């Protein structure tokens, strides 16, 4: 199949993810959307790997998955810590690190 279709799907998923990161207030949903963006990137990588016929893109996709896993761990840990301290689980409310 034409690689363009795969890239379109990837772009669509990426945009949905980006929109979610920008508009949702719950950190959990933000992390979810972040995952979406990462996986969209993965999809693009694998599509190109298939196009070029070598495994570079697939290897890189696995690396991305590792990084995503680490980042989700940290993010979820942060959310648990917030809950423990009875802080509002709302991205807009947490803005003490301002200039």
């Amino acid at each position, binding site marked *: 199949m034409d690689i363009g279709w795969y890239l379109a799907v990837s772009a669509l998923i990426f945009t949905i993810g*980006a929109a979610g*990161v*920008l*508009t949702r207030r719950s950190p959990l949903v933000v992390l979810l959307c972040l995952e979406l963006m990462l996986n969209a990137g993965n999809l693009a990588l694998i599509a190109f790997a298939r196009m070029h016929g070598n495994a570079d893109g697939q290897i890189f996709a696995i690396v991305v998955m590792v990084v995503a896993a680490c980042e989700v761990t940290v993010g979820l840990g942060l959310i648990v810590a917030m809950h423990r301290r009875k802080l509002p689980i709302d*991205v807009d409310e947490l*803005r*003490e690190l*301002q*200039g």
Partner: protein
Amino acid sequence: MSSVELFAWLTLLLPLAGTIVVALAGRRLSGRGAGYVATGAMTLSFASAVGALLALQGLHHEERQVRAVAWDYASTVGIDAQISLLVDPLSVFMILVVAGVSTLIHLYSIAYLDSDRGYVRFFAFLNFFVFSMLLLVLAGNFLLLIVGWAFVGAASYMLISFWYRRTTATNAGIKAFVINVIGDVGLVLGTFFIVRHTGSLDFLETFEGIKSDFSPNDADLVAGCVLLLVGAFAKSAQVPLHTWLPDAMEGPTPVSALIHAATMVTAGVYLIARMHPLFELAPTAADVGAVIGCLTLLIAGTIAIAVTDLKRVIAYSTMSQIGYMIMAVSAGAYAAGLFHLMTHAFFKALLFMAAGSVIAAMAGQQNLDRMGGFKRSLPFTYGCMVIGGLALAGIPPFSGFFSKDEILLLIGDRGGWYWILYVAGYVGAFLTGIYTFRMIFRAFWGDSVPEALELEEGHMHHPDVHSNPANGEIEDTEVGFPGPEHHIAEREPAMKIAMGTLALLAIVGGLLQIPKVTHVIDHFLEPTFAESALYERDPSDGLISFGLILGTIVGLAGIAIAYVVWVRKPGMAARVRARLRPLHGLFANKWYFDELIGVLVVRPAQWFGSFAQQTFERVFVNGVLVGGATGLVRVGSSAVRAAQTGFLRYYAAMLVVGMVGLTMYFLLLS
């Protein structure tokens, strides 16, 4: 090193050694020990000066200008200053006068200041002063002269403020010092104008090349000489830089005798005499000097008639006599001016010493209104005062007669508009007679005041409470204020010897230069003034006799007037004062010079200072500049800070926008 050089260095350095020894060991020397050490150093210094004289006279006439060099002081980028002395008849003359009179004053001070808690400090400073004065007159180049000039000013400040817990003394000290610094600046700038053409700071080299470097009355030379005159006027208390001298009487009387009568104030006269090649080539500047000298002798004479503080009368008389000397050396009568410098040193120091004795009898009080009748209780002091007074008033055969007369003779001999100065000189002599004997009659004749009565009964007056005679503030007798005891000449052999020697010199000193008979000083100083066009003079016999007779008459007339006003008709003084109230006010208020300087100089400076403090610093510097700089930084940082909102979503959005923008940029570019 030749013997002349050796003696010159010894003369210069012995007082410095005295200062150091007295300063370091002073505490360990009991009683008057410090005084003896210091006077011993001075005696040795005087002996070396005599040695230098003999050694110099042993040289050939043409060779009597010896340079003694120690090391390079500042020889760089075109200036060539070394630590170098110039030993010639002029400097040897000066060191003899300075060292000689200083030794006698040291002797006097051993007794006079005994019991003052600052005794050791006094002698250390006094020796240092003599060192500075000797440095000034022995200096062989402009830079070293200026150094000596400033040291003398510093020593003068330290001695005027000797009783440093008195505000009157410290104020007088800083006033004297600041005016002296103005003189220093004048000397420095004058040196610049001259060295710009001559290329050398050394005296002998400057004088040798003077005619080729400058044309007569060259603008730079006149400017330079006038600036040198500013220095001379500040140091010699000539109008308008004279206001420090009367205030300087705050210092102990030996200080007034040494510094403000015999030595420091004569530095200006020495300067003009030393720089005579320059002044002869710039007659405009010399004329300025003569005119100021003349004005000063008249103004000071009028003030001396009106003031009532004993030491201030003598101080103004000094100012007036120095006016004569300045007038003389500016007009080319170098030997006459220097001769008067010498005789004046003798009789003025004598007068101050006698005044010190009277003031001691008055337990520190200096006001003539409170004195009277000391003739009986202070006979020796009275005798010295009369001798000094007669010499000052110019009565033959005392020394002052011959020296003052010679000055006026040679001024008259110049002719032209100098006749005005000639007449003024005799008017001044008339005033001199009046104020000198006014002082003597008021202090010594008439009814005895309580202090004199006490003394006649054999004991000195001791006040219950010590106070500052100038403003009545209560004092104690610890260091920084005068000591508890006072000493009069009649009871102190040291004082008697010093005063007696000076009295003798005041009587016979005139023998050195009697017109047409002896010319000791003329011949002695000849090598220094060999190139001078004005040195060799031959006034007419008629003028000589006329001058001698006129001088005698004028002096006696002054004494007679003083006798009539203050002895014969006691109420007359008050009546004359009442009749001529504005004139008396002008004289008694010192011609309002202090007030004038206050308005012209002091107030604007203070205004500038407070303007700077109050307004400029706060409004402009802090408000505009510092506030501006910090304000700018603050505004800038708050602008940047606006981007740190703390909103996560905002950051994310910025990320996205930035990335999209970058991508679009590169897409469009390709």
